[in-house]
């Protein structure tokens, strides 16, 4: 299941487009433009991580939008779910394949690490944590994107829904957090993706951050499964 989904990204050229764009954009901003590594004058991948933080945010919904929406539209979902697999296996297979693609994209950026590492003294722990943070964040967005894809047969709707939900975690909760005090402030603070991502990419692996990402992933996948099961109530 995971294998075929992974293969289908390549069959339909989506993977190539995504890899090239991701590497192009992250490379451009990391090395050439704005607050790039040379400007900072530090052997740090901070610039790369903050670029990847945004590029992944936009790319992941584009990958997830077709996962289920396309199958619902074309009717292949009917074949898939009448095979000897459960709904859950379908959801998890699709999730893992997308996550695998993201990991491949991230693996291609390892040369950045090596290059910077050869320039100066690199905090290896922070780099590993940074990658882990990106992977966990991707997982959360894939999971949200999957749910968005499961509620519609239209890929554009799925993309925008995923982006709309994502932007709250990505940006708005952080902004709201600074506008509130006390409990509300802390609540928004703890919902913000930025907080958790930053804390991991600083090299601090906190159980709270892990719980945050994993619970987003599980919730998204669970809701996707529920919305697949909804076919039994109405069509």
């Amino acid at each position: 299941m995971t294998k075929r989904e992974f293969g289908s990204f390549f069959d339909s050229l989506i993977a190539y487009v995504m890899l090239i764009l991701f590497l192009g954009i992250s490379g451009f901003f990391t090395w050439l433009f704005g607050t790039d590594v040379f400007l900072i004058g530090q052997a740090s991948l901070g610039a790369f991580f903050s670029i990847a933080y945004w590029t992944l945010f936009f790319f992941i919904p584009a990958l997830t939008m077709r996962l289920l929406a396309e199958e619902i539209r074309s009717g292949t979902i009917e074949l898939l779910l009448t095979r000897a697999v459960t709904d859950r296996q379908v959801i998890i297979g699709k999730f893992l394949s997308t996550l695998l693609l993201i990991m491949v994209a991230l693996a291609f950026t390892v040369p950045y690490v090596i290059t910077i590492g050869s320039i100066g003294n690199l905090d290896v722990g922070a780099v590993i944590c940074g990658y882990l943070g990106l992977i966990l964040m991707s997982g959360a967005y894939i999971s949200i994107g999957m749910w968005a894809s499961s509620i519609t047969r239209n890929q554009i709707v799925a993309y925008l829904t995923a982006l709309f939900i994502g932007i709250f975690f990505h940006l708005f909760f952080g902004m709201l957090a600074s506008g509130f005090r006390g409990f509300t402030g802390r609540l928004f603070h703890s919902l913000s993706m930025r907080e958790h991502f930053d804390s991991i990419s600083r090299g601090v692996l906190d159980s709270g951050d892990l719980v945050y990402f994993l619970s987003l992933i599980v919730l998204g996948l669970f809701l996707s499964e529920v919305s697949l099961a909804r076919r039994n109530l109405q069509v």
Partner: protein
Amino acid sequence: MDIRIENLTKKYGGQRAVDRISFEVRTGEIVGFLGPNGAGKTTTMRMITGFIAPTEGNIYIGGKLLEDHADEIKRHIGYLPENNPLYPDMPVIDYLEYVAGLQGIPKEEVFPRIIEMIRITGLNPEKHKKIGELSKGFRQRVGLAQAMIHDPDILIMDEPTSGLDPNQIVEIRKLIRELGRHKTVILSTHILPEVEATCDRILIINRGKIVADGTSGLLRKQASGAEILRVRIEDGEPNTIFKALQKLDSTSQVGFVDGKKDRFEIQCHPGTSAAREVFRLCVEQQWMLTEMIPFETKLEDIFRKLTTN
């Protein structure tokens, strides 16, 4: 494997798409669902394949309740949904390999099965193409290949010949006939000659209910009840012949056919045949009997009678 269905009901909103239907399909039987569009054929099939759950009622496959043994039973069902949905971006062989994996075929058996399927369905010339590049007929074959790849005991096909040209239809029907010798097959169609050509038994479904169940011969008998003969009698005065025919013991009604003077349609009393009497009458009167055709009620007529109110 046999299929037993009890009081199956599916409601969409307040509407009953399938309304308390019960039937059985024995192993090795080919059953055709016949019905107008929207009669509940597809919904019934979707419930048997486990894609949607019934609102009420039970489905037993091989004696086991579907909802309790879904994972195990799904392995024994091959399904060709309506409109034959496929992944247009995938090459044919990759797709079959993927399906084989999903159906839990052991790795070493996957390729022999794919080769077998390509042979049976005649996909060989197109096997390296992407599915999206295939013609409709070949796509339908891919659909059949994916449904049969795990050698299921039960095959469920929703309009298997839709969109095919006449030659392909004949081929697919032949294939279904062959398969039906060992497997339990349910297919749906609204093409009447198709069920006659391929099915052992016909279920006519209308508005979610089974309105007829039997072989095509049995349905005919039920619908008409009485034999109809068309005869052509020459060398006589038409009105005399007409009256003489009416007087026969076994005829209940006589009429002229197409306004022609020498052709008559005779409707017999139920359970009797007027053929012998007509022949004797002609011999006695020295009329020339040039045609005598027992006229069958068409399946179309039965279908229309049962499905229109």
